[in-house]
């Protein structure tokens, strides 16, 4: 399982990059969901969001899930390319699979990579 150390993690399996403001689904989450066939970003550029607010709706071949904002702030950018290529959430969750970028807010109480790894391994039993 890939858990980059430069990112922060939420209990609802989103990653957050405090330096760029980008967020997305973790590798753990995409693996649990299996093949992702549809993603809809629920917020638009310029919209202000609260931490914990749903920002994306994801459907895989076996489940549907929502992604929640790991931080408050204003949406500065939305990854429009995901609508056409939802499968990048599986293949490149921390890169091309970013969902939205946020600016000017306060992140929730997030985990670092080591804490998140422990959190995931506890759930897999």
């Amino acid at each position: 399982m890939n858990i980059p150390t430069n990112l922060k993690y939420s209990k609802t399996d989103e990653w957050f990059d405090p330096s760029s403001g980008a967020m997305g689904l973790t590798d753990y989450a995409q693996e649990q969901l299996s093949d992702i066939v549809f993603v809809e970003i629920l917020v638009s550029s310029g919209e202000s969001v609260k931490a914990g607010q749903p920002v994306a709706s994801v459907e895989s071949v076996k489940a549907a899930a929502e992604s929640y904002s790991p931080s408050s702030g204003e949406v500065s950018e939305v990854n429009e390319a995901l609508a056409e290529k939802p499968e990048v959430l599986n293949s490149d969750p921390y890169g091309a699979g970013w969902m939205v970028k946020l600016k000017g807010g306060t992140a929730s109480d997030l985990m670092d990579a080591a804490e998140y790894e422990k959190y995931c391994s506890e759930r897999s039993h």
Partner: protein
Amino acid sequence: MTYIPHSPKERDAMLVTIGVKSLEELFKDIPAKFRFPDLDLPPALTEMEAAAELAGYANANETSQTFVSFLGAGVYNHYIPAAIDHILRRGEFYTAYTPYQPEISQGTLQAIFEYQSLMTSLTGMEVSNASHYDGATAVAEAANMAYAQFRGKRSKMVISPTVNPQYRATLRTYTQGMSLTLVGDDAGANLDGGPETIERFIDEETALVVVQYPDFFGRIYDYTQLAESTHAAGALFCVAVNPTALAILKTPGEMGADIVVGEGQPMGIPMSFGGPYLGFFTTLKKYIHKMAGRVVGETVDNRGQRAFVLTLTAREQHIKRERATSNICSNQGLLALASAVYLSLLGQTGFHQVAELCYHKAHYAAEQINKLKGYKLCFDTPFFHEFSVCCPKPVAEINAHLLEHGIIGGYDLGQDYPALKDHILIAVTEMNTKEEIDLLVEILEEVSHD
């Protein structure tokens, strides 16, 4: 599958497990006097007596089998080939419900897949779901889809006053509590004009525009221009259709529709006093994730053989919960099958022929009625197999007179449209012979003299 009821031994074992002495003790919370109430029923009948009594009740009904019918208004009297019932009643098919363990029911899935394919080619659209309850609920699901498409951010829907009044009522029932505004069909709406009359309601707040084709009065309009105006405002365009008419008319797909829905009853389903019917729902591929209902897809199994599956199920409410487009994913499996069998038996040529017969017979009837003193066709717009006539007397009076002569008359438009008092909507299908049409014309003339 064999159904094996519990044996007395198994029941005793269960009672011991839960610590209850007898079956009666399980029901002790129900006061004894209510457990076996005296139902005050008449003496029991033998099967032969019961059959005779029930047949007596059934025979009290007057139907399209015993009467000549010119009643339409959304439900039409068409010939139903005998083979349909034979196929429907096969044990493999004879359950009206959507399969819960779908992949084991390959036959059912294939039948739905064929149905979906037929519906998309009929409407000129790209995808179809496995069906809804009826035409009215299919229209309402179009509203749900448009609402979901814009994530509730567009709060207005424009509906033509010439959409079936029952569809409009159902749409209002489904959308109450969704903080939507439905406009375009208020009581004073202009009924003489074409599609352009609702154009002025379309704006940036509009999620959906709904029209009917042919409209409730039987009229045929090309909606291409209206579809363009709808798209210019960023909204979705929905057309509710009569499937029989599509056998000979330009498809809504060609006009630029985003959603095409309709009542499937004319395709091999009996009128049977109002249901069960079939709602079909088709749309474009780009909207498939927002479409309600089940979808059957074709794939290959692990041995490379053609197989059918329920696909894109994560859209549905049992998985997506409140974010799903609709809280209904039931389909009318048996009736969808009936329509698929109907279209397959008739083929493209046969279905075309049914539509042509309807068209020509209706035009013959309209022409004859229009010649009668006191009667006049309301509109000079092209029509399919149904037309509105302004009458010299109240429609109820005319229909009562027709009934005396074994004819079920037309639909009284005044009950839904106060402006159309004394207007009758007459439907003619392939089932009506020239003699029957001539008799209708004769009686209509007779009534006007009374």
